[in-house]
């Protein structure tokens, strides 16, 4: 891609776009301080973009086909709910500790299952997902209310200023900070030796392994790290919405997040963010359809997977690069096919 020149500074198009978006996001509450609805929309976008991007990191880059994303998100949310309510921890340390606890669970699940290939991991992590709901619903001994609820989770604070529930702007900036920090963390992982190891394993598996790239170790690291990210953002979600229940484990949330990753583009970096933006907007837009919108969402997933396997980001990249208006590019799925791994 091309570069933009401003005096002597040269910036890539991608970075320039990201910075522009960041400036716009920083200015939004200043420009529209009364529009709580729009800000709420964007806080949700920050949360789900991180979830989708974390899923994209494990599924699209590390090639671990996990279905446990929402499970880790929920574990983080309930961990902070219990820590701040039962043990009286203040919110920020509690969010961090929830992330660490979730990462521990991730390691425990990853240890036996990451040696397996492809679809098996999907099934095991989905079993974890299914296991959580009955556990939460019967969690009375550890302080979860009947029916799997935790009510009135403490509000966040910053230097002694407690965020009010009816003003969204402080929440907006807290969410934006987490969004930027966690996305930078994911970007760093993709560009770090770990990310390169995955690219090597994906494109030339046996060669990379013969050169001493330990697939299992790197998979475990990324699995734990993504669990940490999901735990942190899940904890933030819990503090933001104040009431959490096992409804979070519903199939609709699950498929909604999956479509963010698929529609945005599996294995492309801003894919999850683009997907989250489009899906959250579409979901609001389709409100008059009521429960039928889940059916529409399911249909969108199938159509995207069949006709646009590289998602919006991958397709846009392909169109810009080759100047051909085609939906199927040579992105992630073609590359994965080269792995020739038996699943």
């Amino acid at each position, binding site marked *: 891609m091309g570069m933009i020149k401003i005096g002597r500074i040269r910036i890539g198009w991608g970075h320039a776009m990201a910075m522009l978006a960041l400036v716009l996001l920083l200015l939004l509450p200043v420009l529209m301080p009364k529009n709580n609805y729009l800000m709420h929309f964007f806080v949700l976008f920050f949360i789900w973009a991180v979830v989708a991007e974390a899923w994209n990191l494990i599924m699209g880059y590390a090639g671990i086909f996990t279905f446990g994303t929402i499970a880790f998100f929920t574990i983080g949310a309930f961990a902070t709910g219990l820590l701040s309510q039962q043990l009286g921890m203040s919110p920020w340390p509690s969010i961090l500790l929830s992330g660490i606890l979730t990462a521990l669970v991730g390691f425990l699940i990853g240890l036996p299952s990451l040696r397996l290939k492809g679809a098996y991991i999907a099934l095991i992590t989905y079993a974890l997902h*299914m296991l959580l709901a009955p556990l939460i619903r019967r969690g009375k001994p550890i302080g979860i209310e009947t029916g799997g609820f935790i009510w009135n989770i403490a509000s966040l604070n910053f230097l002694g200023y407690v965020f009010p529930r009816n003003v969204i702007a402080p929440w907006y900036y807290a969410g934006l900070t987490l969004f930027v920090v966690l996305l930078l963390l994911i970007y760093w992982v993709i560009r770090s030796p770990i990310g390169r190891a995955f690219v090597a394993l994906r494109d030339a598996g046996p060669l990379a392994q013969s050169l001493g790239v330990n697939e299992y170790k790197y998979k475990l690291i990324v699995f734990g790290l993504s669990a940490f990210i999901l735990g942190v953002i899940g904890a933030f979600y819990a503090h933001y919405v104040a009431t959490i229940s096992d409804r979070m484990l519903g*199939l609709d949330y699950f498929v909604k997040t999956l*479509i963010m990753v698929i529609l945005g583009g599996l294995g492309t970096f801003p894919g999850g963010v683009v997907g989250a933006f489009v899906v959250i907007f579409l979901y609001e837009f389709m409100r008059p359809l009521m429960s039928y919108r889940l059916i529409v969402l399911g249909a969108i997933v199938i159509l995207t997977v*069949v006709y646009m*396997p590289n998602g919006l980001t991958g397709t846009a990249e392909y169109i810009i690069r080759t100047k051909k208006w085609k939906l199927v590019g040579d992105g992630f*799925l073609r590359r994965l096919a080269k792995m020739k791994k038996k699943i």
Partner: protein
Amino acid sequence: MDTWVYKIPSALIDGVTIGSVYALMALGLSLVFGVTRTYNFAHGSFYTWGAYLMWYLPVLLKRNLPYPVKFAIVVPIMFLFGWIFEKIVVRPNRKSPNWIITVLICTLAAALIFDTTALVVFGPLSKAIPPLFEGKIRLGNFVVYVNDLGVFAIAMLAISALTLFLNKTRQGTAMRAVAQDLTGAKIVGVRADKIFGYSLGISAVLAAIAGILAAPKYFISPMGGWVPYIKSFVIVFLGGLGSFKGTVCAAFILGIVEAMVVIYLMKAWVMPVWFVVLIGILILRPKGLFGIWE
């Protein structure tokens, strides 16, 4: 002290009953995995929809029919359902280079569509259908419900029919050939696409029968298929992938374990125990009881 011993027979009967339901579910899953090499995440929806159709028939026709007639109506519908499902959801992915994973995603989306449709059409309240067989047999202190025996008998009948189909008929042999070696089967002239459709159809029928057999006791709800689905793949793991005998054995073993857990511990412990079993299999014997790994 005495009650502890007295509970064993009833736990065994409960376990065998629910085990036969799980066996049907798991066999369908195993068949589809063996033949088409895909995990069908909408398998649980077949279970739910079979039971819903059985419940809906008397409502639709405004009169109650005997069970054999209802089975004769539901089974072909479910076969067609599975066959069309293959045509619309699984088939278009086949030309994609990474179709195993895209099929997984598509079937999950299809499950969402089916479940939401069930929720919209039938409502969120769970439904019940009358037991398939009335009456109970008294043996001293124990009471045996005829329905439990009937469930076991129907499941056995379905499993024998499937065995006969796979071993004696031309289509069944073709199905086994595709499961063994797709390329080889294509070379000798087996039309694999047709076989894929049939296997999805049969798995839908098996799941629907399982759903109908379980419905009088466990009720029908839009999301109710997920738990049996997860359990059935634990069974497939324990039995060993691609092993018919192993799957049936594992279903009964885990069914009895579940019944023991329900009676001696608590119902809340059922899913954790299944999960521990799954992790245990993965650590101790990843190829399952009878399985051949990869």
